[in-house]
């Protein structure tokens, strides 16, 4: 009995310590995202510096809108995955992670298709900006998919069920939302401004 009651404060200490680690990790992740955001902001600025506000006629507007919608939808499934894990609903969380991964792959495929079919004249500055911006962003999408795959593979045995144990899912989903936020600015910058 005495042993049982002495375990309770020890468990509370360990949970408090785990939350403290989550707070530190969260701050570190946000600082990383902030520095990464600066990089993307410079890419966007260089696009306007190189080619003003002209919109390139070679871009596929329908494809741009479709992959943008897909990425926004993948943010919803990523959010739903995180909340499901936070509520201990591992099965639903895994399903949502898988949907997010599939939509991420479709987005990357859409960008690859745009790369293969867009006909920028050689030496056109807009093309330089387009390939730099979408290339860097697609690299982040691919790394995000890899992170999501790792989390999905490890979540099968209840690794991330509730409390501070959900942090790896939260961190990966945060990164995914960040990739979405970058595209929120890149889509109008590349496809819509004229």
């Amino acid at each position: 009995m005495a042993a049982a009651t002495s375990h309770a404060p020890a468990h509370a200490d360990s949970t408090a310590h785990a939350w403290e680690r989550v707070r530190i990790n969260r701050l570190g992740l946000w600082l990383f995202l902030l520095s990464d955001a600066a990089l993307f902001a410079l890419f966007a600025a260089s696009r306007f510096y190189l080619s003003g506000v002209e919109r390139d006629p070679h871009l596929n507007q329908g494809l741009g809108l479709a992959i943008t919608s897909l990425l926004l939808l993948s943010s919803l499934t990523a959010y739903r995955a995180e909340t499901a894990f936070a509520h201990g609903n591992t099965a639903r969380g895994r399903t949502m992670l898988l949907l997010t991964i599939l939509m991420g792959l479709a987005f990357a495929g859409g960008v690859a298709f745009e790369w293969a079919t867009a006909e920028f004249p050689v030496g056109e500055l807009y093309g330089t900006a387009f390939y730099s911006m979408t290339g860097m962003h697609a690299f982040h999408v691919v790394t995000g998919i890899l992170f999501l795959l790792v989390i999905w593979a490890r979540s099968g045995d209840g690794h991330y069920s509730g409390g501070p144990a959900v942090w790896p899912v939260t961190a990966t989903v945060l990164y995914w939302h960040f990739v979405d936020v970058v595209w929120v600015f890149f889509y109008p910058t590349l496809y819509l401004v004229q």
Partner: protein
Amino acid sequence: MSNHKLAPTEAADQRTGLNVFVVLAVLTAVEYVVAVGLHNTALLVTLLTLAALGKTWAILVYFMHIKRLWRGEEAH
């Protein structure tokens, strides 16, 4: 827990996510329509910037839980 019947708090979270997505989708549609129909560059850039900032705010607050940076996750 069943995969089909959600706990009330989880269901509320999922509804919040859906509402945010609808706002994001509507703003994206507005961006597209405005970009196709508007030929005033200054006005277009202003509207697109406002829409992007609105979408970013929604994602930061509701999807990325930016408030947890100063309130802590255990408080939500």
